[in-house]
């Protein structure tokens, strides 16, 4: 309980409100999305997906603190998201590995056999 009160004072002094956090989070989210859409390299795409998920963590924590600092369910959710994104990253890497083994390429452009 104590911890959050001090944090709130520091934030108030530095003039940081929840909208700043949300702003940063949305920017992060946007960057992640842009990264996924633009990158040709598979690993970079996976990393950008992770980035998007982390951006959402930030949103959760910010909102939790802003709306109901006493109950930490938002942060619990963030932790869950972390674990899940880790699992996803692992699976993603395994798939990229399999692709690389078959076609010796990690470029997204080579994987457009399934179309129309």
């Amino acid at each position, binding site marked *: 309980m104590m911890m959050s009160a001090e944090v709130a004072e520091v934030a108030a002094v530095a003039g940081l409100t929840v909208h700043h956090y949300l702003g940063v989070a949305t920017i992060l989210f946007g960057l992640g999305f842009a990264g996924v859409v633009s990158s040709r390299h598979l690993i970079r795409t996976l990393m950008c997906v992770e980035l998007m998920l982390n951006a*959402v963590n930030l949103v959760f924590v910010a*909102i939790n603190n802003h*709306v109901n600092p006493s109950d930490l369910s*938002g942060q619990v*959710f963030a932790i869950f998201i972390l674990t*899940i994104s880790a699992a*996803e990253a692992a699976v993603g890497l395994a798939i990229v590995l399999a*692709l690389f083994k078959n076609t010796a390429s990690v470029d997204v452009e080579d*994987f457009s056999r*399934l179309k129309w």
Partner: protein
Amino acid sequence: MMLEAISDTLIQTSFGQFIYNQNLAFLAPELVISLTLLMTFALSLAKTQVDQAKSWGIALLGSVVALVSIVMHYQLFYTGQVSASQSVMFGMFEADLLSVVSRFILTLGFILILHLSKRFVETRLPSQTGEFYTLLLTAFLGALLLCGANDMIMAFVALETLGISSYILTGYLRNNLKSTEASLKYLVYGGCSSAVLLFGLALIYGLAGGSTSFAVLPQALSQASDLGAWASLAIVMILAGIGFKVSAAPFHTWTPDVYEGSPTPITAFLSVISKLAAFVFAIRLLTPFAGVGNENVALLIGLLAVLSMIVGNVAALKQTNIKRLLGYSTIAHAGYMLVGLAALTQNSLGALLFYLATYVFMNTGAFASAMIGDELLASEEISAYSGLIKAKPWFVFAFSIFLLGLAGIPISAGFFAKFFLFQSVVLSDLGNLGVIIIALLASTVSLYYYLNIIKVMVIGEPSEQVQRLIGEGKDSAWNLSKTLTLATVICLIFTLGLGIFGQSGLLISESAMSDHGATVTQNLR
């Protein structure tokens, strides 16, 4: 009696006590599935292929036991021993009638999928059957949990268990380029859309005043007269997540590729199990928003519905690959179901549930026939099916019934389900007649490509594969996999039966959404 005995002894133990006061008994099916999961996992470590093959038996046994426990749970409801809403694990899981009925349909579907995949897995990856079934059971477990999840965290975890395991399953044929490419697309697309879904959930979390449970939503939204900018963005993002899982346009681009690339049993799994679970999740999440801002949410969903109906049907017209065509047809059917969801009234959601039930059988039947076709003709191209009636008339009859069912032509359950769905939507508000007419016109277009396949099979000149089949003559008998044929026959019986004798099925799905059925429907009309 024997069960009561076991449960009495169990309760004495501290663990039993914990389960008891958290009435975890209602999670019996999930527990059973996790048990079977562990067993198949253990088997997957075994060296010899014979032990590996046993894992199919265990998976089947597990799901049957789960089915029995669900039916017993329904008995409790039916006999009134249990009051409707039974929240489990601090409100994380809502064991109400909606979750029971949806889990019942899910398990039925899963059993059919198991039958579909037996021969497929043994021939293609004999050494990894244990691992395959473990993954399949994890995905199924995720789906089961999703049906009852009444909390954001629980829903997200269940959704991702289902998601991630199905990414792996899609790419299970490692040396097949199509399968791995499909799983790549599925993973990246799934990752992004779950990120978007989470962003939406986060905003809803803020809106709901800092609690992740869905139960709190109705009060939180009761004052909100209109959806604010942030709230509407949240809803759209959630719809994006659901749209991905349910393969509704404009979030459908992954569906044709994944359906064509991944192994057919898994495609069946995706099109049936994950779609049904996603819809139940959508029902739980979106119903609180029904009353807000004169049905704006309903119109949003309606927008998605119309888009997917048009995209799904129109795109499927010129398809030549059977699985890709069924992919587009699932997009179209997602559109019809979303129309039911958009109406957001008790009987329209009931009709939606019934539609989902019939859809499970028709679609699994269609995929089973595609698999039989693959075994007979070793090709997924529709042209290969031409003139098949001369070789396998009874198979052509079954396949046509499934296709006509999907098209909504009479005496098949599809026709009845579509009729109930559209009728319930209009009965809620005459204004929806416009959407219904669009839906009917779209299903008229859909008849073209369904009938096209039947035409090729019945009228076409025998293709060289079919000629070879005729050459083999009767002795080729049914060297097809017994379980696959059994699954097709079950689907056929249900597709024909569920319509004509649909009275009981309809009652069950209506009750699922009635007042005492689901906690979530208190504020619905």
